[in-house]
Protein backbone atom coordinates (compact mmCIF):
# COMPACT_ATOMS: atom_id res chain seq x y z
CA UNK A 1 0.00 0.00 0.00
CA UNK A 2 2.83 2.38 0.89
CA UNK A 3 4.61 1.67 -2.37
CA UNK A 4 1.48 2.37 -4.34
CA UNK A 5 0.99 5.61 -2.47
CA UNK A 6 4.52 6.64 -3.28
CA UNK A 7 4.00 5.77 -6.91
CA UNK A 8 0.83 7.83 -7.08
CA UNK A 9 2.59 10.74 -5.38
CA UNK A 10 5.40 10.50 -7.90
CA UNK A 11 2.87 10.66 -10.69
CA UNK A 12 1.28 13.73 -9.10
CA UNK A 13 4.63 15.45 -9.09
CA UNK A 14 5.37 14.52 -12.69
CA UNK A 15 2.05 15.76 -13.98
CA UNK A 16 1.83 18.87 -11.88
CA UNK A 17 5.46 19.93 -11.89
CA UNK A 18 5.13 21.58 -15.26
CA UNK A 19 2.35 23.83 -14.11
CA UNK A 20 4.18 24.56 -10.88
CA UNK A 21 7.47 25.51 -12.49
CA UNK A 22 8.09 29.15 -13.13
CA UNK A 23 10.40 28.82 -16.10
CA UNK A 24 9.23 28.81 -19.70
CA UNK A 25 6.89 31.79 -19.36
CA UNK A 26 7.44 35.43 -20.25
CA UNK A 27 7.43 37.60 -17.16
CA UNK A 28 6.51 41.23 -17.22
CA UNK A 29 9.36 43.50 -18.05
CA UNK A 30 10.14 45.80 -15.11
CA UNK A 31 9.29 49.39 -15.95
CA UNK A 32 12.33 51.62 -16.53
CA UNK A 33 12.06 53.24 -13.11
CA UNK A 34 11.57 49.87 -11.40
CA UNK A 35 14.60 48.16 -12.89
CA UNK A 36 17.35 47.72 -10.33
CA UNK A 37 14.97 48.06 -7.40
CA UNK A 38 15.98 46.06 -4.35
CA UNK A 39 13.62 45.41 -1.44
CA UNK A 40 15.29 44.85 1.92
CA UNK A 41 13.32 43.32 4.73
CA UNK A 42 15.56 41.46 7.13
CA UNK A 43 14.54 43.57 10.10
CA UNK A 44 12.24 46.38 8.89
CA UNK A 45 8.89 44.72 9.45
CA UNK A 46 10.00 43.39 12.81
CA UNK A 47 10.66 47.00 13.76
CA UNK A 48 7.18 48.06 12.56
CA UNK A 49 8.57 49.82 9.51
CA UNK A 50 7.83 49.14 5.86
CA UNK A 51 10.54 47.24 4.01
CA UNK A 52 13.26 49.37 2.45
CA UNK A 53 13.10 50.11 -1.27
CA UNK A 54 16.54 50.80 -2.72
CA UNK A 55 16.74 52.25 -6.23
CA UNK A 56 19.94 51.54 -8.11
CA UNK A 57 19.45 54.12 -10.85
CA UNK A 58 20.05 57.18 -8.67
CA UNK A 59 23.01 55.68 -6.86
CA UNK A 60 24.78 54.29 -9.89
CA UNK A 61 24.80 57.68 -11.51
CA UNK A 62 26.84 58.98 -8.59
CA UNK A 63 29.20 56.15 -7.65
CA UNK A 64 30.93 53.25 -9.30
CA UNK A 65 29.82 49.75 -8.34
CA UNK A 66 33.05 49.24 -6.45
CA UNK A 67 32.52 52.07 -3.96
CA UNK A 68 29.36 50.48 -2.58
CA UNK A 69 30.01 46.81 -3.12
CA UNK A 70 33.68 46.67 -2.15
CA UNK A 71 34.61 49.79 -0.15
CA UNK A 72 31.40 50.08 1.83
CA UNK A 73 30.81 46.35 1.69
CA UNK A 74 27.26 45.76 0.50
CA UNK A 75 26.52 42.21 -0.64
CA UNK A 76 25.21 41.54 -4.13
CA UNK A 77 21.94 39.93 -3.11
CA UNK A 78 19.00 41.43 -1.26
CA UNK A 79 19.07 40.58 2.42
CA UNK A 80 22.60 39.21 2.44
CA UNK A 81 24.34 42.21 3.96
CA UNK A 82 22.20 42.30 7.09
CA UNK A 83 22.08 46.07 7.45
CA UNK A 84 20.75 47.23 10.78
CA UNK A 85 19.70 50.66 11.95
CA UNK A 86 22.60 50.58 14.42
CA UNK A 87 25.08 50.09 11.55
CA UNK A 88 23.63 53.07 9.74
CA UNK A 89 23.69 55.22 12.84
CA UNK A 90 27.36 54.42 13.35
CA UNK A 91 28.14 55.57 9.83
CA UNK A 92 28.46 52.26 8.00
CA UNK A 93 26.54 50.83 5.07
CA UNK A 94 23.81 53.31 4.15
CA UNK A 95 25.06 55.58 6.92
CA UNK A 96 28.40 55.92 5.11
CA UNK A 97 26.77 58.64 3.00
CA UNK A 98 23.35 59.04 4.57
CA UNK A 99 24.69 60.75 7.66
CA UNK A 100 23.25 64.26 7.39
CA UNK A 101 26.73 65.68 6.71
CA UNK A 102 27.87 64.48 3.30
CA UNK A 103 27.11 67.04 0.56
CA UNK A 104 25.66 65.89 -2.77
CA UNK A 105 24.08 68.15 -5.40
CA UNK A 106 24.70 71.08 -3.07
CA UNK A 107 22.61 69.67 -0.24
CA UNK A 108 23.40 67.49 2.75
CA UNK A 109 22.36 63.89 2.21
CA UNK A 110 19.59 62.99 4.65
CA UNK A 111 20.56 60.85 7.61
CA UNK A 112 19.43 57.23 7.66
CA UNK A 113 18.11 55.65 10.84
CA UNK A 114 18.61 58.44 13.29
CA UNK A 115 19.04 57.05 16.80
CA UNK A 116 16.50 59.32 18.42
CA UNK A 117 13.23 57.88 19.56
CA UNK A 118 10.69 58.19 16.77
CA UNK A 119 8.20 61.02 16.83
CA UNK A 120 5.60 61.67 14.15
CA UNK A 121 7.92 63.95 12.21
CA UNK A 122 10.64 61.31 12.27
CA UNK A 123 8.30 58.73 10.80
CA UNK A 124 8.14 60.73 7.59
CA UNK A 125 11.91 60.70 7.43
CA UNK A 126 11.95 56.91 7.87
CA UNK A 127 9.48 56.57 5.02
CA UNK A 128 12.00 58.01 2.59
CA UNK A 129 13.68 54.61 2.52
CA UNK A 130 11.16 52.38 4.29
CA UNK A 131 8.70 53.06 1.52
CA UNK A 132 7.37 49.73 0.24
CA UNK A 133 3.67 50.15 -0.39
CA UNK A 134 3.70 53.85 0.40
CA UNK A 135 3.60 56.87 -1.83
CA UNK A 136 6.67 58.81 -0.86
CA UNK A 137 7.86 61.99 -2.52
CA UNK A 138 11.46 61.72 -3.61
CA UNK A 139 13.99 64.42 -4.33
CA UNK A 140 14.75 62.71 -7.61
CA UNK A 141 12.31 62.16 -10.41
CA UNK A 142 13.22 59.34 -12.77
CA UNK A 143 11.74 60.97 -15.83
CA UNK A 144 13.51 64.28 -15.32
CA UNK A 145 16.70 62.38 -14.56
CA UNK A 146 16.62 60.06 -17.56
CA UNK A 147 15.33 62.49 -20.14
CA UNK A 148 18.69 63.96 -21.23
CA UNK A 149 20.52 60.63 -21.12
CA UNK A 150 21.12 58.47 -24.20
CA UNK A 151 18.57 55.70 -24.45
CA UNK A 152 18.92 51.95 -24.59
CA UNK A 153 16.41 49.23 -25.13
CA UNK A 154 16.16 47.42 -21.83
CA UNK A 155 16.68 47.81 -18.12
CA UNK A 156 16.33 51.43 -17.11
CA UNK A 157 16.11 52.41 -20.76
CA UNK A 158 19.32 54.37 -20.22
CA UNK A 159 22.65 53.68 -21.93
CA UNK A 160 24.80 54.04 -18.81
CA UNK A 161 28.05 53.39 -20.64
CA UNK A 162 27.42 56.09 -23.18
CA UNK A 163 26.15 58.50 -20.52
CA UNK A 164 29.46 58.19 -18.73
CA UNK A 165 31.51 58.32 -21.94
CA UNK A 166 29.97 61.64 -22.94
CA UNK A 167 30.21 63.04 -19.43
CA UNK A 168 26.52 63.32 -18.56
CA UNK A 169 27.12 61.27 -15.43
CA UNK A 170 30.34 61.18 -13.46
CA UNK A 171 30.28 58.25 -11.03
CA UNK A 172 32.79 58.83 -8.24
CA UNK A 173 35.28 56.03 -7.67
CA UNK A 174 36.40 57.18 -4.23
CA UNK A 175 34.58 57.74 -0.95
CA UNK A 176 36.43 59.42 1.89
CA UNK A 177 36.74 57.24 4.95
CA UNK A 178 35.92 54.07 3.09
CA UNK A 179 37.88 53.87 -0.11
CA UNK A 180 41.53 53.11 0.47
CA UNK A 181 43.84 55.33 -1.57
CA UNK A 182 44.95 52.79 -4.08
CA UNK A 183 47.80 52.37 -6.41
CA UNK A 184 47.28 52.81 -10.09
CA UNK A 185 45.14 50.08 -11.59
CA UNK A 186 46.89 47.78 -13.98
CA UNK A 187 44.60 47.72 -17.01
CA UNK A 188 43.05 44.37 -17.77
CA UNK A 189 42.76 43.27 -21.36
CA UNK A 190 39.49 42.53 -23.05
CA UNK A 191 39.18 38.96 -24.24
CA UNK A 192 36.99 36.79 -26.35
CA UNK A 193 34.51 34.22 -25.11
CA UNK A 194 33.43 31.53 -27.49
CA UNK A 195 29.69 31.18 -27.53
CA UNK A 196 29.99 27.53 -28.51
CA UNK A 197 26.67 27.68 -30.32
CA UNK A 198 26.71 27.56 -34.06
CA UNK A 199 25.70 30.83 -35.57
CA UNK A 200 25.65 32.79 -32.29
CA UNK A 201 28.16 35.65 -32.34
CA UNK A 202 31.09 35.34 -29.94
CA UNK A 203 31.41 37.65 -26.97
CA UNK A 204 34.12 40.26 -26.65
CA UNK A 205 34.26 40.60 -22.92
CA UNK A 206 35.03 44.17 -21.89
CA UNK A 207 37.34 43.27 -18.99
CA UNK A 208 38.89 46.72 -19.02
CA UNK A 209 35.60 48.56 -18.55
CA UNK A 210 34.47 46.11 -15.91
CA UNK A 211 37.61 46.62 -13.82
CA UNK A 212 37.25 50.39 -14.02
CA UNK A 213 33.77 50.18 -12.50
CA UNK A 214 34.18 47.18 -10.21
CA UNK A 215 37.80 46.73 -9.30
CA UNK A 216 39.01 43.13 -9.08
CA UNK A 217 37.61 41.92 -5.75
CA UNK A 218 33.98 42.36 -6.63
CA UNK A 219 34.08 39.55 -9.19
CA UNK A 220 37.10 37.47 -8.17
CA UNK A 221 36.85 34.93 -6.75
CA UNK A 222 33.29 35.03 -5.46
CA UNK A 223 31.50 35.46 -8.77
CA UNK A 224 34.10 34.07 -11.14
CA UNK A 225 36.13 31.32 -9.55
CA UNK A 226 37.77 29.74 -12.56
CA UNK A 227 41.10 31.27 -13.26
CA UNK A 228 42.12 29.89 -16.62
CA UNK A 229 40.28 31.36 -19.53
CA UNK A 230 38.12 28.77 -21.15
CA UNK A 231 38.16 26.44 -18.17
CA UNK A 232 34.83 27.42 -16.71
CA UNK A 233 31.67 27.02 -18.69
CA UNK A 234 29.05 29.66 -18.17
CA UNK A 235 25.79 28.54 -19.68
CA UNK A 236 22.93 30.89 -20.40
CA UNK A 237 20.80 28.81 -18.07
CA UNK A 238 23.19 29.50 -15.17
CA UNK A 239 23.43 33.15 -16.08
CA UNK A 240 19.67 33.61 -16.21
CA UNK A 241 19.48 32.03 -12.74
CA UNK A 242 21.72 34.75 -11.38
CA UNK A 243 25.13 33.10 -11.44
CA UNK A 244 28.35 34.50 -12.94
CA UNK A 245 27.38 37.29 -15.35
CA UNK A 246 23.83 37.01 -14.08
CA UNK A 247 24.77 38.42 -10.66
CA UNK A 248 24.55 41.86 -12.24
CA UNK A 249 23.17 41.33 -15.70
CA UNK A 250 19.70 40.22 -14.70
CA UNK A 251 18.54 42.85 -12.24
CA UNK A 252 20.84 45.86 -12.27
CA UNK A 253 23.12 46.04 -15.30
CA UNK A 254 21.61 45.65 -18.77
CA UNK A 255 19.54 42.48 -18.74
CA UNK A 256 20.06 39.29 -20.72
CA UNK A 257 17.39 40.18 -23.24
CA UNK A 258 19.91 42.60 -24.77
CA UNK A 259 21.80 39.84 -26.58
CA UNK A 260 23.75 42.14 -28.85
CA UNK A 261 25.46 44.02 -26.03
CA UNK A 262 27.58 40.94 -25.29
CA UNK A 263 27.41 38.84 -28.44
CA UNK A 264 29.13 41.46 -30.54
CA UNK A 265 31.67 39.64 -32.65
CA UNK A 266 30.30 38.98 -36.09
CA UNK A 267 29.92 35.36 -37.03
CA UNK A 268 32.62 34.07 -39.32
CA UNK A 269 31.07 32.81 -42.56
Amino acid sequence: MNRKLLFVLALVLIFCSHSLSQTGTKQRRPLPYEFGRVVLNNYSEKADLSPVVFEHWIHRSKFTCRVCHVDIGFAMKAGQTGIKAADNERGYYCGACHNGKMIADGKPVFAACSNRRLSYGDQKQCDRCHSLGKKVASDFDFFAFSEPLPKERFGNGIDWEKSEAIGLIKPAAFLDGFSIPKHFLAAQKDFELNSKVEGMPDIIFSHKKHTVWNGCELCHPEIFMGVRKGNSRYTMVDISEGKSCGVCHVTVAFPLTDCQRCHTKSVQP
Partner: protein
Amino acid sequence: MLKRGIALMLFMGLVAVIGGVYAIGEPASSETQTAPAQEAWQAEFDDICSRSQNAMTFSQQELADLIQRCDVLMPKIEKLDETRKKVYMGRLRMCRGLYAYVLESKENQKK
Protein backbone atom coordinates in the same frame (compact mmCIF):
# COMPACT_ATOMS: atom_id res chain seq x y z
CA MET B 1 4.16 57.96 55.42
CA LEU B 2 7.14 60.26 54.94
CA LYS B 3 9.51 57.36 54.31
CA ARG B 4 7.16 55.98 51.74
CA GLY B 5 6.98 59.31 50.01
CA ILE B 6 10.77 59.70 49.87
CA ALA B 7 11.17 56.15 48.60
CA LEU B 8 8.60 56.79 45.88
CA MET B 9 10.32 60.04 44.84
CA LEU B 10 13.70 58.32 44.65
CA PHE B 11 12.22 55.50 42.61
CA MET B 12 10.59 57.89 40.15
CA GLY B 13 13.82 59.82 39.88
CA LEU B 14 15.65 56.63 39.00
CA VAL B 15 13.10 55.78 36.36
CA ALA B 16 13.41 59.27 34.89
CA VAL B 17 17.19 58.98 34.66
CA ILE B 18 17.06 55.59 33.01
CA GLY B 19 14.36 56.75 30.63
CA GLY B 20 16.35 59.84 29.80
CA VAL B 21 19.45 57.88 29.05
CA TYR B 22 17.44 55.53 26.88
CA ALA B 23 15.89 58.43 24.97
CA ILE B 24 19.07 60.34 24.35
CA GLY B 25 21.30 57.40 23.78
CA GLU B 26 24.13 55.86 25.66
CA PRO B 27 27.31 57.90 25.93
CA ALA B 28 29.84 56.79 23.36
CA SER B 29 32.89 57.08 25.50
CA SER B 30 34.59 53.79 24.75
CA GLU B 31 35.64 54.64 21.19
CA THR B 32 37.83 57.63 21.91
CA GLN B 33 39.78 55.85 24.63
CA THR B 34 40.91 53.01 22.35
CA ALA B 35 41.50 55.17 19.26
CA PRO B 36 45.27 54.55 18.97
CA ALA B 37 44.80 50.75 19.07
CA GLN B 38 42.06 50.92 16.42
CA GLU B 39 44.18 52.86 14.08
CA ALA B 40 46.81 50.13 14.10
CA TRP B 41 44.49 47.46 12.67
CA GLN B 42 42.87 50.00 10.38
CA ALA B 43 46.25 51.06 9.04
CA GLU B 44 47.19 47.43 8.49
CA PHE B 45 43.90 46.78 6.69
CA ASP B 46 44.34 49.83 4.48
CA ASP B 47 47.88 48.81 3.65
CA ILE B 48 46.97 45.24 2.70
CA CYS B 49 43.84 45.99 0.72
CA SER B 50 45.08 49.08 -1.06
CA ARG B 51 47.19 46.83 -3.26
CA SER B 52 44.33 44.78 -4.69
CA GLN B 53 44.28 46.77 -7.91
CA ASN B 54 47.78 45.56 -8.73
CA ALA B 55 47.36 41.99 -7.57
CA MET B 56 48.23 40.65 -11.00
CA THR B 57 51.69 42.28 -10.92
CA PHE B 58 52.85 40.67 -7.65
CA SER B 59 55.07 37.66 -7.37
CA GLN B 60 53.81 34.47 -5.74
CA GLN B 61 55.82 35.19 -2.59
CA GLU B 62 54.37 38.68 -2.26
CA LEU B 63 50.86 37.31 -2.65
CA ALA B 64 51.52 34.60 -0.06
CA ASP B 65 52.77 37.30 2.34
CA LEU B 66 49.67 39.39 1.81
CA ILE B 67 47.44 36.40 2.46
CA GLN B 68 49.40 35.67 5.62
CA ARG B 69 48.92 39.25 6.79
CA CYS B 70 45.16 38.95 6.14
CA ASP B 71 45.02 35.82 8.26
CA VAL B 72 46.85 37.61 11.11
CA LEU B 73 44.50 40.58 10.89
CA MET B 74 41.32 38.49 10.92
CA PRO B 75 41.21 37.70 14.68
CA LYS B 76 41.75 41.40 15.45
CA ILE B 77 38.73 42.33 13.37
CA GLU B 78 36.68 39.56 15.02
CA LYS B 79 37.11 41.36 18.33
CA LEU B 80 35.53 44.60 17.08
CA ASP B 81 31.96 45.68 17.73
CA GLU B 82 29.20 44.05 15.73
CA THR B 83 28.96 46.68 13.01
CA ARG B 84 32.62 47.08 12.24
CA LYS B 85 33.19 43.35 12.48
CA LYS B 86 30.49 42.78 9.87
CA VAL B 87 31.82 45.46 7.54
CA TYR B 88 35.52 44.72 7.77
CA MET B 89 35.24 40.95 7.82
CA GLY B 90 33.37 41.20 4.53
CA ARG B 91 35.93 43.53 3.05
CA LEU B 92 38.86 41.45 4.27
CA ARG B 93 37.25 38.31 2.89
CA MET B 94 37.01 39.88 -0.57
CA CYS B 95 40.52 41.25 -0.40
CA ARG B 96 42.08 37.98 0.80
CA GLY B 97 39.98 36.04 -1.68
CA LEU B 98 41.36 38.10 -4.51
CA TYR B 99 44.98 37.51 -3.52
CA ALA B 100 44.35 33.78 -3.15
CA TYR B 101 42.66 33.75 -6.54
CA VAL B 102 45.55 35.51 -8.25
CA LEU B 103 48.06 33.26 -6.50
CA GLU B 104 46.21 30.20 -7.75
CA SER B 105 46.17 31.58 -11.27
CA LYS B 106 49.92 32.13 -11.20
CA GLU B 107 50.48 28.62 -9.86
CA ASN B 108 48.30 27.20 -12.61
CA GLN B 109 50.12 29.16 -15.25
CA LYS B 110 53.43 27.73 -14.18
CA LYS B 111 52.17 24.16 -14.54
